[in-house]
């Protein structure tokens, strides 16, 4: 039942995200996530990536997998590396099915979370399938229930876009030009 429900939410999320030019995947384990990410990056010709550490990356041995695929991984000095890195990988807290939206809500408002997901041309986001929330309304309630509203809460829905010149939709202005979302079913505790 719960699984069915999550699958339904996932499908809704995927449809919404694809509607705004995002890519969406789902895998069973953290290790499979690593594999998928490697394939996606190789396909896109990514040579180096800024990765913001989180337990899920250790669990799936993801950093190692990426390095083994011949891609350079940066895990610190983000202020220097993110402006020129080919891509950024971060784990985000929630996903809203209603609109295909990712939610960054780290309690410590880690600035690197934002650097790795905003300055890079391609953002790859990992999120637990169980972190899917049905609606925007429920998401706002959930954020409100946290001990305090995190210093920075970021909703991300698809890549950066503009229609400021002649109302023509153009993808990729200040933020990423591509957004890849990978849902991971395996539960990994986030320790902050």
């Amino acid at each position, binding site marked *: 039942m719960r699984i069915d429900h999550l699958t339904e939410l996932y499908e809704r999320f995927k449809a919404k995200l694809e509607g705004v030019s995002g890519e969406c995947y789902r895998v069973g384990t953290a290790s499979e996530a690593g594999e998928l990410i490697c394939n996606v990056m190789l396909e896109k010709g990514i040579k180096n990536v800024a990765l913001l550490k989180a337990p899920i990356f250790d669990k799936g041995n993801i950093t190692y997998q990426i390095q083994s695929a011949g891609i350079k991984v940066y895990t610190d000095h983000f*202020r220097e590396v993110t402006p020129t890195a080919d891509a950024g990988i971060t784990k985000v807290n929630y996903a809203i099915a209603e609109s295909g939206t990712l939610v960054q809500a780290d309690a410590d408002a880690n600035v690197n979370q934002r650097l790795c997901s905003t300055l890079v041309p391609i953002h790859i986001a990992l999120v637990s399938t169980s972190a899917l929330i049905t609606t925007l309304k429920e998401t*706002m309630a959930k954020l409100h229930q946290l001990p305090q509203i995190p210093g*920075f809460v970021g909703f991300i829905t698809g890549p950066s*876009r503009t229609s400021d010149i002649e109302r023509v939709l153009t993808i*990729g202005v200040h933020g990423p030009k591509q957004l890849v979302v990978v849902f991971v079913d395996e539960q990994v505790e986030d320790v902050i």
Partner: protein
Amino acid sequence: MADKQFKKKISEALDNDVLRGALGRFGDAYTISRAKAYEGYDFKSISDNIAEVKSYAASHLEEMIDQFEQSATARGAKVFRASTGEDAKQYILDLAQRRDVKKIVKSKSMVSEEILLNKTLISAGISVQETDLGEWIVQLAGQHPSHMVLPAIHLTKEEVAHIFSGHLHKLNQPVIAELVKTAREELRKSFLEADMGISGANMAIAETGTLIMLTNEGNGRLTSTLPPVHVFLVGIEKLVPKFEDATHILQALPKSATGQQITSYVSMVTGPTPAYYSDGTVKDKEFHIILMDNGRRKMYHDEKFKKTFQCIRCASCLNVCPAFQLVGGHVYGHIYTGGIGTILTNFLNSEKDAQNPQNLCLQCGKCSEVCPGKLDIPQMILEIRNRMGEKEGLPFTQKFALDVVSNRRLFHSLLRVASIAQKPFTKGQPVIRHLPMFLSGLTEKKSLPAVAKVPFRDVFKTIKQDVKNPKGKIALYAGCLIDFVYPKIGEGVIVALNEKGYEVVFPEGQSCCGAPATYMGDRNNARKCAIMNIEALEAEKVDYVVSACPTCTHALKVSFKELLQDDPGLAARAEELSGKSKDFSKLLSDLGGLTPGGDGVPLKVTYHDSCHLKRSMGVYAEPRKILTDTSGVQLIEMKESDRCCGFAGSYSIKFPELSGPILERKLNNIEETGADAVVVDCPGCLMQISGGLDKRNPGIRVIHTAELLLEKRKKLKNKTK
């Protein structure tokens, strides 16, 4: 009245094909994408929610501000209350100088445009970079935004390429993807180098001290991530009581503004967050919030304008406005454009600045229909117009005409003279031009009706009403156009109501409903008309009062009450009249409608919704039912049937150059249906549309619903006799 220079700006805007093309295309696409974005959502309940939380904030404004300051301060923010734009600018300048700031990046902030912040900072030697693409283009071009959501909608890619080439000293091709790439590269440097960020917010949550920004490009995210000093410059109207109240605005704003489910980014900032300093260390940034008044409190303390607090700045009111679509934003003269912009300009700049643009409002009400904040924009503009009229007085000719209208005997004898005077002219064409007010002269694109030889008040006496055991009595309120120009409509009304078993009376003392005075800002004369008609109609003595002109019906139902609320005796009578007044098709349908029938002769018709009938009274199904119940009549819906025809009372005299193209669009939509006739329920629309068709396509007739019934059911009536 609009002055010469303003008129010149209008004609320049109209001559700008680029602007008109862009605005026109956007207007059409907007309607579709907005509807799509709201699919599966209940717009009404979302906007009810917004109105509820925002009106709560508005009526507890000081409390909200205190609470916001407390919660934001508790999270480490410095909050400054700026009562004027000058205060805000000084605060930012001092801060920048204290921190030795050289480079500032800004993400969209209308408030900073409002107070011309850039000018202050730049003249202090600080570099200021707008980072929203549209704003940046406008900044480079040395202009100001023409639209709240789409600042550079008035420029083409060629113009943008030209602007870029000039400023960046390298040739830019007019290819949109390339131009966007250039912007990314150029602005990326600014983001990385900036030592201060300034941004606006879409919401400020009192409960938690949170600021919420919606952007698509990601500039809001970067501005609040990179520079070690961040200033939020926020108008006090952005306050929202509780964190979860933001949900409603998050639901509506992207859908209403750009037809998106949600913007690419929503950033919520609560207190200072860590940032990189130039020495490479990471620590909490310096974080300031300026809550600015600059004329706002005065607006929210004014009962008639309090609701402007509910505006979430989505700009949908601009996007659907027939006048805005023709002239664009720059004509409005100040930072806030369109209908809502006119109101804001009136308070945040000066009443004088609003004097010209307030004239652009057609009072068609389309904006209120789509407003997620439930603002009655036309009503507020009218209030501004009236206050101006009271303060400054109207120009002599207008004043004279309105004085005439509110003097029944004089007005009616002039009309009778006019009907004779027009004889020497062929077809009676030009005469109406000499009549007061909205009966007067128009454009070359339109021909004008003649004043009827015999006014309805005289025709009435000759109509035999054969009603046995009448069910009741209905007073007919004719209004100027039916009385003196289109008496046939009045006949149609009587015949239909007789068929329903009611006797119709025509109270002689009735006169102009005062709408011309109301819409031109002359409350005094409007009031006189209200009293005159309340006394004449004696609503106490009849079951209903019927009018076949929605503008008049609106006056009977709504305006009279408002105009007389200070006089208890008259107010009670106005209330009685209001309750009994109905527009013809509404009354007929409330009485159960006519038994379907007609002459069966095939007639293809299309229906035009009058602004007042559809939007003020919610009547649009009733007249259509009347039409489809009439045998022989085939109804073909036209595109945009409820879009204003451009008559709008005196508008067609004030702005023939705008009324003309608005009418033309209506005529195109009519012609597209291939109908033989356009049916309308408003004699004003009838005059406007038939004036246009007469010149362009005399094959298509324009006819009032009551008149159509009269024609199509004549035989039926004879048969049953």
